[in-house]
């Protein structure tokens, strides 16, 4: 072993208490960092999962238009006072072709027309207002992973039964509905129709479960007294939700219809996530930094204590960089011990919390071992330790042995 490392090792082990305090600091900082950031990922994942049960990555629809000047090839200035939304109908013209164009994009995984209809669910005397979503079962399953939150019945029955309906568990409880029961729907156009319950789902979002149902696309069109070319929305999923906004921009250009990414459609949720991310990042980094200060302080103390040693080592021919190595080695060793301890501690914490059942919309504590956060924590921890050690080491390297030895 190199003499610099030997000296570093001796200093570490000769002052076990100080070393232990510094290691403990890093250990705590490290475990809190990994833990909190894994929790953050967990929160985001669980919030995204529940978002994507109801929302596609991109929604393509016809936007309302504001009345515009019709003549634009004159020098005259036309002024429209009090512009109004043009009373256009908001259907997508030639939806088949648009759908094909969208599906040709390589980022797109699923695209599906969808019609959301406001309805009343009627069963005997009880009535609930809600939304019935007209879908194509296979595509919808790919998009929302509906089968994963079915509690009874089967989504595929919707295909064979044009009058089938999938209802939320809240509706089923409130109206006392079971599989194969009949349920009457009244649309905003006044059309009334009876459906047969073929499945019940539970998303853990209580509002959704109390209001939402899935029916066939054609049934939706009939409820609205429209033909089978009546499409208001095309929903699109892409390979990675993070690129949704980018692809949406492209789709707007290609199709001429408004395409909106899920982040834009869920601005409040995104803002909440962002705030949570900022707070957790700030707090966890601060804690790591405090651990860094611990190392800095303790090494500063060691340097002051060992100032005579440093002077005689330099007199005997140790260079500035040797002295730096001695103290940085010390810092890094403390860092490595702390990081290892921190990783173990974080793993234990996560293992424990993963099993805690919270209930409600959340279920189990939304945390998992996030390898990326572990790596991030380890890297940041070691970088901070390095600098926390480097500063006192630099000071030690600049000690002028003459000043010390002549006293």
């Amino acid at each position: 072993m190199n003499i610099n490392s030997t000296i570093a090792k001796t200093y570490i082990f000769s002052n076990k208490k100080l070393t232990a305090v510094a290691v403990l600091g890093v250990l705590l900082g490290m475990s809190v960092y990994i833990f909190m950031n894994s929790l953050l990922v967990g929160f985001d994942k669980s919030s995204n999962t529940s978002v994507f049960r109801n929302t596609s990555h991109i929604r393509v629809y016809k936007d309302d238009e504001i009345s515009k000047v019709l003549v634009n090839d004159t020098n005259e200035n036309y002024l429209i006072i009090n512009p109004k939304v043009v009373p256009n109908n908001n259907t997508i013209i030639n939806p088949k072709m648009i759908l094909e164009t969208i599906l040709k994009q390589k980022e797109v995984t699923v695209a599906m027309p969808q019609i959301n209809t406001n309805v009343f669910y009627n069963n005997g005397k009880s009535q609930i207002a809600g939304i019935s979503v007209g879908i194509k079962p296979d595509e919808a399953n790919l998009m929302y992973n509906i089968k994963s939150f079915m509690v009874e019945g089967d989504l595929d029955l919707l295909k064979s039964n044009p009058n089938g309906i999938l209802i939320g568990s809240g509706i089923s409880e409130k109206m006392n509905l079971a599989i194969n029961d009949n349920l009457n729907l009244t649309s905003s156009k006044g059309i009334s129709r009876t459906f047969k319950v073929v499945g019940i789902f539970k998303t853990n979002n209580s509002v959704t479960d109390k209001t939402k149902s899935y029916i066939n696309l054609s049934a939706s069109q009939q409820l609205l007294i429209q033909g089978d070319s009546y499409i208001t929305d095309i929903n699109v999923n892409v390979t990675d939700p993070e690129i949704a906004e980018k692809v949406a921009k492209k789709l707007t250009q290609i199709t001429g219809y408004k395409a909106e990414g899920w982040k834009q459609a869920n601005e409040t949720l995104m803002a909440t996530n962002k705030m949570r991310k900022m707070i957790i990042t700030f707090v966890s980094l601060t804690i790591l930094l405090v651990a860094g200060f611990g190392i800095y302080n303790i090494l500063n103390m060691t340097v002051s204590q060992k100032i005579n040693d440093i002077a005689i080592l330099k007199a005997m021919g140790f260079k500035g960089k040797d002295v730096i190595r001695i103290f940085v080695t010390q810092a890094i060793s403390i860092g490595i011990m702390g990081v290892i301890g921190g990783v173990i501690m974080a793993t234990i914490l996560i293992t424990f919390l993963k099993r805690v059942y919270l209930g409600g919309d959340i279920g189990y504590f939304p945390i998992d071992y996030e390898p990326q956060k572990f790596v991030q924590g380890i890297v940041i921890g070691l970088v901070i330790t390095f600098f926390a050690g480097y500063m006192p080491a630099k000071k030690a390297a600049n000690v002028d042995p003459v000043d010390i030895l002549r006293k």
Partner: protein
Amino acid sequence: MILKTENIDKFFHDPNEFQVLKNIEFDVKKGEFLSMIGKSGSGKSTLLYILSTMDTDYSGKLFIDNQLTTGLSKDHLAEIRNEKIGFVFQFHYLLAEFSCLWNVMIPALKLGKLCEKEIEQRAYQKLEILGLKDQALKPASKLSGGQQQRVAIARALINDPLIIMGDEPTGNLDSKNTDIVFDIFQNLTQNYGQTIIAVTHDEDFAKKSDRIIEMKDGEIVKNIHSR
């Protein structure tokens, strides 16, 4: 010529400007035992630290082993010290957490010319010369003052330096230990051809050495060969 100075001047600027060394010019031959005496504050330590290459803030020239060291980089000077110069101070400056043996080994491990086993053997030899072989594995902090000073001397000898410099190396020792250290130094110069430059307050010590340089107010006032 193992060491030579040409017209060395040094100033301190703090708290006020004053010239601490004036036109220092002398040389030292290989195997000489040289004592430096003079009243307190006459500049002996200041001169010794310049000769040691640790203090580079001076004007004039310093040659060690026929090499001009003035103006060399700090790292280069560190290498020269490691290989060619051994130090003994009034205080021992041993590393408290290491055994005597390790303290002696450290400069040789730094030099890196021999493997650890060989260095250990050499360190035992040096400790034996200084009568400390049985103390080798004790922590340095557990020894008496005289023993610690002898360990420091063993450490100064480990790389067989050309020159051993001492700033009042016997300043903290009783007369018995002072005699032991003197005999070791004399033995080194006479039998191993090593050179000693020692600042001392001890008249007897100085008188027994080969040459005395006396300093006064930053100048060399006497340069006496006693033998």
